[in-house]
């Protein structure tokens, strides 16, 4: 065959789009607008709400306390374990449900029960059943978060392209190749959504667990300062971990997105 030169027409060539400057400025402008709105709300609408400067000052005071990094570290470890555990177990169950109808039939109702269970209820029952402790926190965390991951991965597994699977059978791909080059990449959007949801929900549930049952951690600190009516400290601790969450999104998840989905043709309208 003769060399082909024609390239598919696209709406706009890859690489074109908003300028680098506007891409860099956009988040800065967004954050600045949010801070101004916060300041206005604190100044004129909600008198109990500390303004950004007060919160920042309180944050500085908390950072220099002896237990700051211990609290942060404990919460980070719990969020990490919660994310990894819920993601691994949830992905495996979701994939099995999507591909094996007996597993799907057996687990489908339980996943819905899991989705419907209120987080505080699970935490309280876990404490009643297992007492206070690290395993109690993690168990409650996994029970609450895993069904959400299952739902996302299950949806992805059900939507797998049967034609690509057929191709892999026709060309006699081994099990390993089929998993590595067909199934997992096809599931990757669902897996990425799953890990993001697991991470975000773990943080929310960990704060709740720590507030209800722990003697250490960001949630415990938030609860402590709430009881003593110190909203600036509550906000400072909330932002401490929120900043970490945003950093993980920007540095880890978005980098992964760029690498894993580099193959997607870019279409800009």
């Amino acid at each position, binding site marked *: 065959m003769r060399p082909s030169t024609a390239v*598919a027409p696209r709406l706009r060539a890859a690489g074109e789009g908003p300028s680098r400057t506007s891409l860099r400025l956009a988040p800065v402008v967004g954050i600045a607008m949010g801070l101004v709105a916060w300041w206005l709300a604190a100044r004129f609408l909600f008198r109990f709400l500390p303004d950004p400067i007060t919160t920042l000052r309180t944050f500085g005071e908390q950072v220099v306390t002896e237990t700051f990094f211990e609290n942060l570290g404990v919460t980070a470890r719990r969020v990490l374990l919660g994310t990894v555990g819920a993601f691994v177990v949830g992905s495996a169950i979701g994939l099995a449900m999507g591909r094996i109808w007996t597993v799907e039939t057996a687990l489908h109702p339980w996943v819905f029960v899991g989705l419907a269970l209120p987080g505080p209820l699970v935490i309280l029952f876990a404490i009643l059943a297992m007492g206070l402790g690290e395993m109690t926190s993690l168990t409650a965390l996994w029970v609450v978060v895993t069904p959400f991951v299952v739902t996302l991965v299950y949806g992805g597994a059900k939507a797998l392209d049967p034609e690509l699977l057929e191709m892999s059978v026709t060309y*006699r791909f081994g099990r390993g190749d089929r998993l590595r080059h067909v199934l997992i990449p096809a599931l990757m959007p669902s897996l990425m959504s799953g890990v993001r949801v697991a991470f975000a929900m773990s943080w929310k549930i960990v704060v709740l667990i720590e507030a209800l049952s722990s003697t250490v951690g960001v949630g415990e600190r938030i609860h402590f300062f709430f009881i003593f009516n110190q909203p600036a400290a509550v906000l400072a601790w909330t932002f401490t971990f929120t900043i970490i969450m945003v950093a993980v999104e920007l540095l880890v998840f978005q980098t992964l997105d760029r690498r894993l989905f580099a*193959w997607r043709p870019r279409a800009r309208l």
Partner: protein
Amino acid sequence: MGRRVGKPESGRDDTEAPSSSRIVEIEDLAFGYGEAKQPALDGLTLSIDRGEFACVLGPSGCGKSTLLGILSGLYAPQRGRVAVDGTLVYEGGRRMAREAPAMGYVFQDPRLLPWRRVRQNVELALRAAGVPQAEWDGRVSTYLDMCGIGPFAESWPGNLSGGQRQRVAIARALAIEPTLVLMDEPFSTLDEVTARFLRRELLEVWERTGQTIIFVTHSIREAVFLADHVYVMTAGPGKLLERRTIEIPRPRVYEDPHLTEIEAGMVEWVLEHWGFYDATPREEGK
């Protein structure tokens, strides 16, 4: 192409070739999909010669694609005997050989892995076919170049046009140097100009490689242009209606009046045999 000019056989079901020259032998093949009332194939018997360009022609739903599915191992027949390159693959509806001879498959759509580059798509097929890794680079370059897609080896499939993607699919099928290349209406989703171009290019590649190709189509023109023999199926359940030898010398020209003549005769003939003349015309006004 000189070696195939003017085959001695002509007309309806022609001379039997010696058994050793047969690459595919199918006897009394039957297959039905679970939910369908009528089987897709019922009593199909045909054989295809080594190095032949065979076109399987039939109307939609006559079991053409099912036939390729059985040959490639996607479906197991309920009845019949299938032998490929001397290996008995199915007999009496039972699988006889653990591993059938390697086959390349070009689907209606390219079915490339969009998350793997063009080169990786071909390499995965090579690995699955057990080709030693030392040969991969050479094979990938050879077949991508042969299909005119060499400069796009490092591209993502999503950045190629439909015609380019189908060239990659053809290169993938040929690169494993299979016993048999199966093609299931590979140009039917392309625009006519691209399809014509690719048909001509496919013939050039086939002449260079000498591989046996079974090409399924519902286009009589396409079949007549490409084939050594056209295997005409019944309207369904599918079985062989006739094997026709196309005696037009190669290289062929798509606009050749002789081709048009054969096509016209064949259209007339299949209309009769596919049951279109049996349809009762609707009464006007009703």
